[in-house]
């Protein structure tokens, strides 16, 4: 094998630094770093479960939970600096919040108030993207613009295992490689695309092997191992920042719940399969490790739980507030200046409303 090829190929099995029992198997980040991550993980899980509950209470239309994938969510954001960009999918609400977005604003889309509820420039978080993989070329463009200006910004571009099959995945990786753009493509392989299992998605040895075909180094990491994720993603980000081009990272994880609350996962997978993953929970694992080292005090743990509760309460309060929908918004943002046609159409709605008021 040529050295060039060796540089591109992922390791034969996913990088793990802490095993499912909480024992270190490699060079683990320091305790302070991991404690910070544990806190974020606990809040992340709480937000996922709170959002899910809010769907049942009718405050959210739908929620694609990242329950079980929180280590990926937290790591994706924690390895970034403020100037770096995050490109999340519909499932990456939690990652967006770790990067700084208010969870209430992040859930505006799923509450039905507006498409994107936050200012993408505030925390450098692109709008959640629904059409699979279509955000990846945008990520390349943002990175390329930064690179042309000589800014040290890196872009973390997320997608799922299913998203890797779309043409835009291919085009984005190829563009990033050819233009040497500072992008980390981060695939959360959670084994399913709604009901479609990974085996129907690809026949490749791993999704990380897709990097070879673009000249992009690929790496595989245990997606439920916070330490491994921070290490692998962190290295990819700093490599990109140093001008060494894009990287592809595949995290092996599992979607513990249905695709969204609207989905019925019993139609396509067994409970036993899900149960097998419970023991690999990212939070349990990190807590076991830190507890084993005596690094996690009861106080700190209680504070993590309290912070998570505060975040959940904030989310509840925010989503329980009804924002009065304003029909003028329909016409206000289509163009910087509404066209004559849109002004006429807005007037029609205004007229309808005024007549309704008059009748009432």
């Amino acid at each position, binding site marked *: 094998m040529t050295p060039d090829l060796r540089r591109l190929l992922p390791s034969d099995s996913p990088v793990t630094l802490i095993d499912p029992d909480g024992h270190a198997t490699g060079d683990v980040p320091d305790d302070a770093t991991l404690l910070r991550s544990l806190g974020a993980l606990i809040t992340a899980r709480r937000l996922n479960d709170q959002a899910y509950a809010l769907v049942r209470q009718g405050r959210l*239309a*739908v929620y694609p939970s990242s329950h079980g994938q929180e280590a990926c969510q937290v790591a994706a954001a924690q390895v970034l600096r403020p100037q770096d960009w995050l490109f999340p999918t519909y499932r990456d609400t939690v990652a967006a919040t770790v990067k700084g977005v208010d969870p209430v604003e992040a859930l505006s*889309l*799923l*509450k*039905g*108030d*507006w*498409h994107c509820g936050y200012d993408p420039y505030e925390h450098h978080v692109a709008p959640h993207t*629904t*059409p*699979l993989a279509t955000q990846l070329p945008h990520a390349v463009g943002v990175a390329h613009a930064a690179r042309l200006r000589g800014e040290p910004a890196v872009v973390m571009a997320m997608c799922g295992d*299913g*998203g890797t*099959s*779309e*043409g*835009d995945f291919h085009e984005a990786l190829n563009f990033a490689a050819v233009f040497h753009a500072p992008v980390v493509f981060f695939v959360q392989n959670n084994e399913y*695309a*709604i*009901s*479609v299992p990974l085996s*129907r*998605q*690809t026949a490749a040895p791993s999704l990380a092997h897709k990097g070879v075909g673009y000249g992009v180094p690929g790496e595989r990491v245990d997606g439920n191992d916070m330490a491994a994720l921070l290490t692998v993603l962190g290295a990819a980000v700093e490599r990109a920042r140093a001008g060494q081009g894009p990287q592809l990272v595949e995290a092996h994880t599992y979607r513990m719940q249905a695709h969204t609350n609207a*989905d*019925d996962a019993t*139609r*396509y997978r067994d409970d036993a399969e899900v149960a097998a993953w419970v023991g690999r929970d990212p939070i349990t694992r990190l807590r076991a490790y830190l507890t084993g080292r005596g690094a996690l005090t009861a106080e700190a743990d209680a504070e993590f739980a309290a912070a998570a509760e505060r975040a959940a309460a904030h989310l509840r309060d925010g989503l329980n507030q009804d*924002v009065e*929908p304003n*029909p003028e*918004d*329909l*016409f206000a943002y*289509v163009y910087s200046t509404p*066209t004559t*046609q*849109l002004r006429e*159409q807005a007037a029609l*709605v205004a007229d*309808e409303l005024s007549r309704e008021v008059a009748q009432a």
Partner: protein
Amino acid sequence: MTTVAHHKLSLAQALNRALRDAMAEDPTVVMFGEDVGALGGVFRITDGLTAEFGEDRCFDTPLAESGIVGMAVGMAMNGMRPVVEMQFDAFAYPAFEQIVSHVAKMRNRTRGRVALPMVIRVPYAGGIGGVEHHCDSSEAYYAHTPGLQVVAPATPADGYALLRAAIADPDPVIFLEPKKLYWSKEEIEFPVRAPGIGTAVVRRAGTDATLIAYGPTVPVALEAAEVAAQEGRSLQVVDLRSIVPFDDETVCAAVRSTGRAVVVAESSGFAGVSAEIVARVTERCFAALAAPIRRVTGFDIPYPPPKLEHFQLPGVDRVLDAVDDLQWEES
């Protein structure tokens, strides 16, 4: 001897049954797409097909719409009758190149030697509180593309009949399924006497003005006609069923009989199918028109978020306002 049977079916069930019957009758009919196998499709239109006909006849694909449509083109070239599902309207856009440059053009390209008997099913339009990209009315893109047939059933019986006709048709059909009508039910008599592709139908007789609708706006038009009747105005309702080919005869006869018309469509108006209807009916029936044909359509804006979508959807009041506007005093 055919046995006549009656079943009360929702549109979703009628479509499912049409697929099942077509697959049972013709072994070359295959169904594929995203989540259409074990899950039965996110709207359950393909429910049970894999269990009944096996993995080779109804199967999931990788997530890639261009690949799905492109593979269907190849299978249609080679003896099969593929039916593919695009999960939602806006998720058919990645397949646009395949649809416009190949699906629509293969027969013409080859002087009729290579026909593509294939159906692209698209759950479409809004009214279900869906988030962005799940509620697009995309019919104009297809209707403007020569070589495609475009149909949009509004009732379970039409859903069954048109889907059977589309699958049996030698040419490609874009089959638009109004999502918000999936759960509306109707008693269907089997075997269904099929309206062919290309025939509109007068759904309600009326003498004062004609409402022209298709797909999701047909129930709106019918409801408007009902309200108008109570107010003493008699509205005729035409359901296009097929957008391409267009049934000029039925539509123009209807408009001529009343001299006034309103087109009701959910899609944005600008350069939409509604514009075509106004243009072609006006060209053909100008002398019979007492007023310009009005349009009640979605606004020229991206489909709004759930909390605002009712402003975008043509509703009964807006239709009746347009009818009121048809220069009654002058007639």
